[in-house]
């Protein structure tokens, strides 16, 4: 039934034939992807396979070599700066290392998108910042601190609060649990799920963490680095649900989800990349 609901609507994000090359290095090759509204998509894959680049080109931070990305029927890479920055109000991006502005306090960081676009009074801004921070489990006193004074987990939660403050339609998480202890990782997973439950957002999660993937995903996509594939092989080696990935027969997928090195070290030694 949910499936039917998805199909009836236009997808929120549509990636057509996207390729990204940096110099001589091909990172993404002919990627086609469409994400319906409300879905949580987890992008899996080993380091350097282009997960983050795919996500960044979805919001126009990386210019593709060829292909196009549509967000709600607007071609992201054709928009001018002003239209693009307006469109970006509808995105939230949680960066890998939070990317908080270290010249500002936590309060100013979380309020940044509001100040940038909204016409809110100082009092309203303060209220919204405090409520977002308490949602991610941070005390009020934190707003006067600088990012350098916080732990990694706290910074990540501040990053999440900042991404959520404009009530975005699409939230992207870049390795949300990397570098955190297991409990804090699970806190972040809970926050991802809760955010999704509270408002009907679409999410893209880039991760290596199978626990995160199993917990939050509606759909899992696995990428393979372009340089490890032959020219005609598709780069997306898996696209399906959590239960499907567990029963997937592909050796490369199994290797990844079970975390087995196999012959990988030998391959790495043999390859010159």
């Amino acid at each position, binding site marked *: 039934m949910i499936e039917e609901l998805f199909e009836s609507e236009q997808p929120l994000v549509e990636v057509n034939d996207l390729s990204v090359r940096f110099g001589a290095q091909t990172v993404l090759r002919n990627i086609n992807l469409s994400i319906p509204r409300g879905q949580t998509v987890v992008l899996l894959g080993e380091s350097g396979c282009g997960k983050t680049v795919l996500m960044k080109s979805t919001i126009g931070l990386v210019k593709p070599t060829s292909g196009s990305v549509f967000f709600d029927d607007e071609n992201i890479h054709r928009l001018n700066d002003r239209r693009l920055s307006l469109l970006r109000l509808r995105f939230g*991006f949680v*960066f890998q290392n939070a*990317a908080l*502005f270290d010249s500002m306090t936590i309060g100013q960081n979380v309020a*940044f998108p509001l100040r940038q*676009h909204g016409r809110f009074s100082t009092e309203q801004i303060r209220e919204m910042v405090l409520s977002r921070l308490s949602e991610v489990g941070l005390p009020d006193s934190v707003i006067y601190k600088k990012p350098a004074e916080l732990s990694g987990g706290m910074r990540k939660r501040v990053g999440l609060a900042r991404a959520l403050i404009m009530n975005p339609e699409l939230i992207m998480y870049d390795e949300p649990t990397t570098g955190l202890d297991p409990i804090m990782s699970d806190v972040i997973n809970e926050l991802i799920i809760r955010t999704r439950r509270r408002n009907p957002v679409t999410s893209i999660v880039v991760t290596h963490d199978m626990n995160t993937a199993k917990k939050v995903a509606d759909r899992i996509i696995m990428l393979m680095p372009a340089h490890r594939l032959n020219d005609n092989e598709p780069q997306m080696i898996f696209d399906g649900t959590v239960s499907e990935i567990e029963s997937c027969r592909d050796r490369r997928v199994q290797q990844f989800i079970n975390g087995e090195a196999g012959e990988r070290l030998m391959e790495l030694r043999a390859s010159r990349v």
Partner: protein
Amino acid sequence: MLKIAPSNGDNIETVQGGLPIWGATNTRRPTVSSASDNIEYYDEDLGFFARTLTGWGSIVLDGIMALGDFSIFAYQTFVWMLTRLPKKGTLITNFHQVGVSSLAVVALTGTFIGMVLAVQSYFQFRQIGLETRLGGVINMTLVRELGPVLAATMLAGRVGSSMAAELGTMRVTEQIDALSAMGANPIHYLVVPRFLACLFMIPALTVMADFMGVAGGHFYSVNILDIDVHHYWHNSAKFVTNFDLFVGLFKSIFFGAAIAMVSCYQGFNCTAGAEGVGRASTSAFVYSFVMILFIDLFLGIALDSIYFMYYPEGASLL
């Protein structure tokens, strides 16, 4: 000794009938095993030339690409500067950082340069009995050349490299991406205020350097070398015109623009890691300084020709 004859079968292409076609792959060079030493040597030589040429080629190409990239960057900064001014808060912070914080170091440099000029030129001038002309020489040099150039150099070292390091760190830690992701244009938010701060603060700093240099020169000449005050200033007034002061300040605006653009560009194009940030800040200073020297020479030539249009006989020390 050229011998294009394959020794093993891999250079012979066969048609389906089994008949060998010689020379079907004649674009391929003889392989090592079959080629005589002569050919091998020749080959390597050609390779060396080709390598050198492509090396030079890629240097030129990279240079042109970087120049184009820099031009686009500067163009975008101008466009953003004209479309919307940054918030007052960011402007004031940057103006303070560039102007007020550099004041002390610029003043110190100016004072010492004024005194050093007096020390260095006094002996020669006294030999020909023209020590009262020192005022003209010191003040002219300061106002026209050393004041603006040294203020700009100090600014490039103090502000330029710190800008490059700061923006470079922001690039490396994805803060610049975060700005874009939240709908703020990084050039508008980061580069424009820094550019404006350099543009408007550097003439003020130049005035400061000029003033302190003049004061330092006066102090050393009059109080230590015992040159007559009246003649010192009389000769200065005769020799240094308003146009000279204008030349210095006019040049300084270009220096400021160059420092801001070069440093911000280096910061924005910072490569990952501590090394990248370090390199960005070093090259911000080096390139800014080179730009300052270039601009100084060419503006000097251009402004001199204007000067001689107005004062055809020029200023005379005698």
